[in-house]
């Protein structure tokens, strides 16, 4: 997360048109029985150079949303602008040309199974009528970049999931796109491979200056590489902003739900006490705040959920604590935590917390 500012600063000129702009996008799927509103009035700006996360629970409409960005799904109303050009005003041919600049990777990789790795990478260039020899040279360079040059002659069925996604990434870069859309690109991968693929995406964002849009249901993916995030809930835009701000201070129910949803397991809890969510950010101190608090007030707290990691020497992440029943004491504790630079949110009730956790 620490280099997000860098990423953003490099490519962005103030006042420049957003690379992707959604204006009041709605999508209704009609069938004989009923109409389902998958997206409802979504407006969003994605700036050049962003790594933009779109997060939501499954069924929230995020996959439909990403398909609206290249008009694989045509919005029922509203419009999408790429560098100011309206997609809905384009002819089929113009739209196809535009899609060359907006490539996409998928959860299931979607490689051509009957073509070998290098021919898969060449395929988009074939569509774009790039000279065969030039295409091959470029494909080799891209495969080298994703670390798979030695697998050029192999077929997708011979590769692991992570390798397949690397091939898909190389393929997505073939026509020098401006935007890379990632639809749950790491959801089929194990944690280690996920991390590697995310690293690769971050590299690509920095080296090629490509704007990346990441669709995911996993908050940790967003925290890992995104600088901006939009939270989609039941087809609506619940919240959008900088990842750090949204994480530290979620304003919507849906956002809070997503934060608390990660990590696993429930813990035994005390009766009646207040539940709070505390967020460790870059500003948090090095001292063990929670332990010090317990020592100071000589009263135990219940750690319901802890999800912190070491980033650049400071603990960053979140914890859910249950404070003692004593109202006075718990307010003092909250003040103590705030004094130590932590963001504190009071979860309204136990029932709320139970509602948030364990839901998928």
């Amino acid at each position: 997360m620490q280099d997000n500012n860098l990423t953003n600063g490099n490519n962005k000129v103030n006042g420049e048109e957003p690379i992707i702009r959604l204006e009041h996008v709605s999508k209704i799927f009609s069938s004989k029985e009923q109409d389902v509103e998958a997206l409802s009035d979504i407006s969003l700006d994605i700036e050049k150079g962003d790594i933009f996360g779109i997060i939501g629970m499954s069924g929230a409409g995020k996959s439909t949303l990403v398909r609206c960005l290249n008009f694989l799904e045509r919005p029922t109303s509203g419009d999408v602008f790429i560098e100011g050009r309206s997609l809905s005003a384009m002819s089929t041919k113009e739209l196809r040309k535009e899609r060359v600049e907006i490539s996409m990777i998928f959860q299931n990789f979607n490689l051509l199974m009957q073509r070998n790795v290098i021919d898969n990478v060449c395929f988009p260039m074939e569509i774009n009528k790039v000279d065969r020899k030039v295409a091959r040279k470029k494909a080799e360079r891209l495969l080298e970049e994703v670390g798979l040059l030695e697998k050029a002659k192999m077929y997708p069925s011979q590769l692991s999931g992570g390798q397949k996604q690397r091939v898909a990434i190389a393929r997505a870069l073939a026509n020098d796109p401006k935007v890379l859309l990632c639809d749950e690109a790491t959801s089929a991968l194990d944690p280690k491979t996920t991390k590697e693929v995310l690293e690769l995406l971050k590299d690509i964002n920095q080296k090629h200056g490509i704007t990346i849009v990441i669709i995911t249901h996993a908050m940790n993916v967003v925290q890992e590489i995104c600088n901006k995030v939009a939270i989609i809930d039941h087809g609506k835009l619940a919240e959008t902003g900088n990842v750090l701000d949204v994480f530290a201070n979620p304003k919507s129910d849906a956002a809070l739900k997503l934060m608390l949803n990660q990590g696993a397991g429930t813990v035994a809890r005390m009766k009646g006490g207040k539940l709070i969510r505390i967020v460790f950010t870059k500003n948090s101190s090095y001292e063990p705040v929670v332990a010090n608090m317990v020592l100071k007030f000589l009263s135990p707290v219940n750690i319901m959920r802890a999800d912190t990691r070491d980033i650049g020497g400071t603990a960053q992440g979140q914890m859910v604590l249950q404070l003692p029943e004593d109202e006075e004491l718990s307010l003092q504790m909250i003040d103590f935590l705030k004094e130590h630079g932590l963001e504190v949110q009071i979860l309204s009730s136990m029932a709320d917390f139970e509602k948030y956790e364990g839901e998928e």
Partner: protein
Amino acid sequence: MSFSSQISDFWNQYGTLLVSNTGVTLYMVFVSTLVAYVIGIPMGIGLVVTAPNGLCSNKVLYRILDTITNIVRSIPFLILLILIMPLTKKIVGVTFGSTATIVPLVVSAAPFIARMVESSLLEVDKGVIEAAQSMGASNFTIVFKVMITEARTSLIIGVTIALATILGYSAMAGSVGGGGLGDVAIQYGYYRYKTEVMIITVVLLVVLVQVMQAFGMWLGHKLDRRSIH
């Protein structure tokens, strides 16, 4: 008379007949399969792309293709053979003999092949098609560079099924003077009580089907890049 002299007698009497009629059968089967594919592939592609949710779905066109396919497929071959005799006469000039048999074989096999091509193309992963669309591929490119190549193995296996089916139909055509091994079986085995000729033609037909089937399967799997590990 020894067994071997029996065989050489049989060979002297029927050898040329069987060999030349095997050739006639192969001629009918391969030519009609080829022509039926020339008609069936575009029909199958048409069924896939005009279908609801297809690449360029078109209700009217789909209904027409679907109905033609179903009607022709539901007419038994022997009846079709007689039914379209006027057409056969117009195209070939006569209604009997191997070349004339090709016409009903094609008419009967084309919709059947269209269905097989349709089902092979529908097996192609929707995600791969979506990926191609996201790259800006035209529908033409998607059909010819994605669907057909990805469905290659299934299409080749379809060809072997089509060949075996058409071989069966061609033998049926023998009953009305269509030529080939089926004709021999009827003429000699049925009308002249030469059971041994009948048996040999059946054996030849079985061997032909086996060879075609085995070759098709081998080729289909050899060309399938999903099975390499």
